[in-house]
């Protein structure tokens, strides 16, 4: 009885300090990323390698998921719009939904699942096998060497992949809308030109930039502070992906409010 009554107090007393401690660590880590990111040496070769890993190697899954997302979205909304003879606006609705939400969010989730988990696992393995200690002993800043290139590559590649997702999504949507649902080709396109503004696409790319930063920082953070040997690496990887996913979805809401509340 007493215990249940005290539960909220217990909760506040133990969980909150830990949460604040973790948050503090994250902010210090982000500060370090910026500090070592603007200080030489600038590691262009490592950045390019990471860009290849994060971007180029994700191309296929982005093409595939982009195309099918556009296709299913047109299929669903197109059928609904037919009911009140507004099917010609399907294209513009899908373009706006893709540009503002679906492309940046789904791209971020896909790349994080693939490349973010690898970041946490690689850096975590380096931590538990003392390779990070070895970097320090050899006077190489681990944040500068391991984390900064991954973060820079992510904030470049997340928007680029989002743009590609937009394009193949629209192509897939056009294929289903015009080819399958028989929406008038001219009207489908004219409506896109009429209703979709460059802002709708741009804002999605801005979101992708932030998602890239958030996901890569979280995944590197989780890897960097891995403890408890190889079991810890598995745990760090899982947590990195879960926390990144949740953070992407939560920050998406706030970015949306910031980007659109004046429109």
């Amino acid at each position, binding site marked *: 009885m007493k215990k249940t009554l005290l539960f909220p107090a217990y909760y506040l007393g133990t969980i909150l300090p830990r949460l604040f401690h973790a948050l503090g660590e994250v902010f210090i880590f982000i500060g370090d990323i910026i500090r070592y990111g603007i200080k030489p040496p600038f590691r262009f070769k490592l950045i390019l390698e990471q860009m290849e890993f994060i971007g180029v190697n994700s191309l296929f899954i982005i093409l595939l998921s982009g195309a099918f997302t556009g296709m299913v979205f047109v299929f669903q909304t197109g059928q609904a719009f037919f009911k009140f003879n507004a099917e010609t606006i399907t294209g513009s609705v899908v373009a706006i939904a893709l540009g503002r939400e679906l492309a940046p969010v789904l791209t971020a989730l896909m790349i994080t699942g693939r490349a973010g988990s690898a970041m946490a696992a690689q850096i975590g393995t380096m931590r538990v*096998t003392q390779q990070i200690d*070895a970097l*320090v*002993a*050899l006077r190489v800043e681990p944040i500068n060497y391991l984390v900064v290139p991954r973060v820079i590559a992510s904030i470049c590649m997340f928007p680029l992949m989002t743009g590609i997702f937009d394009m193949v999504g629209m192509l897939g949507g056009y294929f289903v809308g015009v080819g399958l649902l028989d929406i008038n080709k001219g009207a489908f396109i004219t409506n896109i030109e009429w209703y979709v503004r460059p802002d709708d696409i741009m804002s999605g790319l801005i979101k992708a930039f932030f998602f890239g930063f958030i996901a890569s920082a979280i995944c590197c953070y989780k890897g960097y502070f891995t403890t408890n040997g190889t079991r810890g690496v598995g745990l760090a990887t899982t947590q990195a992906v879960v926390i990144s996913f949740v953070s992407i979805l939560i920050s998406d809401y706030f970015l949306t409010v910031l980007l659109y509340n004046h429109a």
Partner: protein
Amino acid sequence: MLEIKNLSKSFGKQKVLDGLNLICKKHETTVIIGRSGEGKSVLLKHFIGLLRPDSGSVLVEGTDITKLHDKGLKKIRARFGYLFQDSALFDFFNVYENVSFPLREHTSLTEPQIREIVKTKLELVGLPNVENKKVHELSGGMRKRVGLARAIVLDPEIILYDEPTTGLDPVMTDAIGELIQKTQKELNITTILISHDISSTFKIADKIALLYEGKIILEGNKEEFTANTNPIVRQFLEGTCHGPMRMAL
């Protein structure tokens, strides 16, 4: 000279080092022995500031490195070579890239010059022609040797070895022991080494220090150790589980 004064270090509630004192003389080989889990690696990491103590000081030629930050620490670390317990080779690099890494980071040598130095160091550790091997293709003994080549590639004044022979067969253990002695003599350096292996310790040590329950309970040369009657020392030297030393489980 390296001097550790009153060093204490805890992880959470676990007190690992408890007011430890130790002196390692220049150009000598100091061997630190002790059971596993006793805190030997923790102690070694304090020499180059990989861990910060809760209290106490670590003096390198009179400079207290526990008071130093980024720049000062880097200067001190430049004088050390560190062979980690599990070699800590970079697994995304091959052997050549591992050994040449410090040269690339800290010198402006040309590629042919780097190639030449790497070749010399790999020959010194008895591993010619392995430059293109991947890390996961190497045996435990080869890894230690490559780790040593990487540690000495910038010609340090002091080398720290964390269990260079653990997990190796007796022949390889002896070979690495001789390699450490050879490195010590040829480069005229200061060696600090962690070991479990009593016979190779007696062979190469100028001074032996026994770590027990967070303190160095005996420092001295081979003769002083063999003559000592402290039951804990006897138990460790004889390698028996019967005695006052509790088992670390």
